[in-house]
């Protein structure tokens, strides 16, 4: 099952390219968009929520944990999307950190997965792709891909 649309929120331009190519190679997503700041992503979700344009929302959102240049971190963005802007997306954290305390916070904020970012990201994305239908149906519990 392919993801219709993916939104990546990450401050690192190079990782946008890596993520896009890796997703494309693994046939994960059809449409992909990247933004560099949590504030920008939050304002996009706010607009979709307030205007009722839920169809414009991405199907799945990958949020970096520490987004340099943003006024809040990735976990706060996940919380805002889940609790303030209507949810309806598969959302999780993508980070080089594997901190269990942060993972617990992400779970509390409503994240469905935590994907550890490293050079060899494809095997993790492959596992995520297999689990994706369950995430979409909300039948899979919080999963850490490391």
């Amino acid at each position, binding site marked *: 099952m*392919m993801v219709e649309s993916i939104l990546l929120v990450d401050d690192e331009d*190079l*990782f946008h*390219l*890596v993520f896009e*190519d*890796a997703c*494309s*190679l693994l*046939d994960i*997503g*059809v*449409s*992909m968009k990247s933004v560099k700041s949590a504030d920008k992503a939050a304002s996009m979700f706010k607009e979709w929520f307030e205007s009722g344009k839920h169809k414009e929302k991405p199907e799945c959102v990958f949020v970096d944990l520490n987004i340099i240049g943003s006024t809040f971190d990735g976990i706060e963005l996940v919380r805002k999307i889940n609790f303030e802007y209507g949810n309806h997306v598969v959302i999780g954290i993508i980070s080089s950190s594997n901190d269990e305390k942060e993972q617990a916070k992400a779970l509390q904020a409503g994240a469905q997965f935590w994907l550890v970012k490293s*050079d060899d990201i494809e095997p993790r994305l492959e596992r995520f792709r297999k689990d994706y239908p369950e995430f979409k149906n909300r039948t899979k519990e919080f999963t850490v891909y490391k």
Partner: protein
Amino acid sequence: MINFSQETIEQLITLKEDKNVFLEGNLLRLIETDNEEFSKYIEECIVHDKDVRRKRLEVTRQVQQQNRELLNLNDENQRILEELQMTLTEVEESKKQVEQAKTEALNDLDLLQKKKQTELIGGIVKVALGVITFIAIMSTGLYVFAIIMGKETTNIGQAWNNLFGILLTNAFSIVGTIMGVKYANKGKN
């Protein structure tokens, strides 16, 4: 999903064969066709696209790695710079301490010299006062002895008078000089 006309399909296949130009990107996953030749073309395009993406991914990763190394080197440089700064601060601090110690040593030396000088003056004064007191006692004793014994006291009386006058004058002069020297040195110490 997207469907292409037969004419477009032929143009795309010709473009690939003549100029090696392929369709690329996620668009390929949205194309639907019953045309066997075009299906084969799409598969070739997907293989080509994946090949290009794989190469780009490799290059991007190398750049990421180089960036990371540069960042680490930058951190290392920053650390060395901070260490150098700290060492420089310590050297300057030591220099200040040495200069302070030198100033203190010079002050101590000056103080020692003044102390010795004062001690010397004190010694001279003690000896002078001793001599004055001895002569005063001796001359007074001699004068008293002459009076008691009923001897001629005119000369010795005048001599005692002159001598005592000179001794008192000199004694006050010495005391005045010492007081003056002490007062002058008071401000410096």
